[in-house]
């Protein structure tokens, strides 16, 4: 009798199982192939464990058997929404290792394309995020505006997503004569449309209730986990590579780094929207002043880097992307490693989502802007 009483009073004697839910590799939303094992207690999340590797393609191993200008083509497929910036990272690494300076025209073109790619990546993020939150109309608005940028890309490069425009020493072809006019038209158009995004989603009280105060990551944790990009800047981590270690044409432009202090999902959201405005400012400063000149340097057919280790960082739309090349003097690199921003961003998810509800988990994941091929490589 006393044992029975004991069991009912101290409930830790009763054996309970954990309720584990699987948000499987196939998602209705556009996160990519990510598997989350969520341990729940009712509606509260106790533990989130990401399982990745569904799209691991062995890019780093493949690079060890390719020449340096062939590596560029593989980097498109990693974070495909900022393909141009990935390409640029490899090209800059090789150019800095060979200590060659590309013409100014190349720098301006690369930076303008960078910023256009950043806007298009943030547009897709916004569309998918709105759809995750339930406001399906956002999907159509964001993609409608993104088509203008993709048309510009198609005119110049011939491709919309996997661009392959950069090459060590310059770019593949010159820009068309009507490029400047098209970009200026787009900027004028988009400046009118971006306030619509705020009206539809950012100002909505349902949205702010779901994102303010949700998924807070403190500044120390942000730096400890290495969360960069707009997700990191939302907590006050000043990590913009364009500011601290400028490359290409960034030394010639004036722009601000979008920082916030709260570190919650709403701050990450607004940092990205403000980045879109800032990107348009950068493009406007550069678009009228593209210097004349060559669009590529004459490079040897086979590029061989001197021995040593080289590291190059660029700021993609997700964060701090790094290329580490270790060369032993041959025509193929000895080791190539890509430091992907999504990898570090994603593993802070457990810290952010503990103690919140499943619906909050979706909000947090959306604001982190994860692209799985970037994480899995």
């Amino acid at each position, binding site marked *: 009798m006393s044992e029975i009483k004991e069991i009912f009073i101290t409930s830790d004697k009763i054996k309970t199982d954990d309720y584990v839910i699987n948000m499987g590799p196939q998602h209705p939303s556009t996160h990519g192939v990510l598997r989350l094992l969520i341990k729940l207690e009712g509606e509260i999340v106790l533990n989130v464990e990401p399982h990745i590797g569904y799209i691991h393609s062995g890019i780093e191993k493949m690079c060890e058997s390719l020449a340096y200008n062939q590596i560029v083509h593989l980097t498109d497929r990693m974070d495909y929404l900022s393909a141009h910036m990935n390409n640029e990272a490899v090209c800059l690494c090789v150019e800095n290792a060979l200590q060659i300076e590309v013409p100014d025209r190349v720098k301006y073109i690369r930076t303008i394309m960078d910023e256009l790619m950043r806007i298009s990546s943030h547009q897709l993020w916004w569309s998918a995020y709105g759809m995750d939150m339930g406001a399906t109309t956002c999907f159509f608005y964001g993609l409608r505006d993104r088509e203008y940028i993709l048309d510009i890309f198609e005119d110049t490069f011939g491709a919309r997503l996997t661009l392959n425009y950069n090459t060590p020493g310059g770019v593949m072809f010159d820009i068309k004569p009507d490029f400047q006019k098209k970009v200026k038209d787009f900027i004028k158009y988009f400046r009118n449309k971006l306030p619509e995004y705020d009206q539809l989603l950012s100002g909505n009280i349902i949205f702010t209730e779901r994102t303010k105060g949700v998924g807070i990551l403190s500044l120390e944790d942000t730096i400890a986990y290495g969360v960069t990009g707009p997700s990191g800047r939302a907590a006050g981590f000043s990590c913009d590579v364009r500011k601290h270690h400028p490359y290409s044409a960034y030394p010639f432009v004036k722009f601000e780094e979008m920082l916030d202090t709260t570190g919650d999902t709403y701050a990450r959201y607004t940092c990205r929207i403000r980045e879109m405005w800032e990107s348009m400012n950068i493009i406007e400063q550069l678009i009228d002043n593209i210097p004349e000149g060559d669009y590529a340097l004459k490079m040897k057919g086979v590029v061989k880097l001197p021995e040593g280790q080289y*590291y190059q960082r660029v700021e993609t739309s997700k964060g701090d992307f790094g290329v580490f090349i270790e060369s032993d003097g041959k025509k193929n690199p000895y080791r190539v490693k890509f430091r992907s921003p999504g990898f570090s961003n994603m*593993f802070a998810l457990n810290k952010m989502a503990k103690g919140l509800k499943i619906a909050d988990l979706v909000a947090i994941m959306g604001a982190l802007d994860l692209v799985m091929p970037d994480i899995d490589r």
Partner: protein
Amino acid sequence: MTNEELIEYLIQQFPEATVVQGTQFVEMTVMPESLLESAQKLKSANETSFDYLICLTGVDYPESIGIVYHIESTKLGHAMVLKVKTANREEPVIETLTPVWQGAKYHEREVFDLLGVKFNNHTDLRRLFLEDDWGFPLRKDYVDDVRIIER
């Protein structure tokens, strides 16, 4: 600190380590036994305060497996490279640096997965991308008839 000042400081603070100026950053190579202590000192010292681990890479050298840490200080703005080489290639074992930089936990899992380096005191050393019975693909002697085509 500039690279020269950093070299002087490191030579003074870490007498057993090899400090050399690489192509971009100062590169410091330590012994595996003193890795954790060096990392902690680099993070906590006020002159260096390296609190941001940029990148953790595993490289397969002929005699051992090397691990390269790119670290940066958010307060002071300088960066450097910390390198360590395991004792041998067959049983590579290294101390984990998760107590120093929390993000290293998952980078180390990746190195364990792709190169086979075991990390001591790692709380959750499992494979990250691949299945449990796969080999270690990033090693130079990895042979896979099905998936790798040699030219």
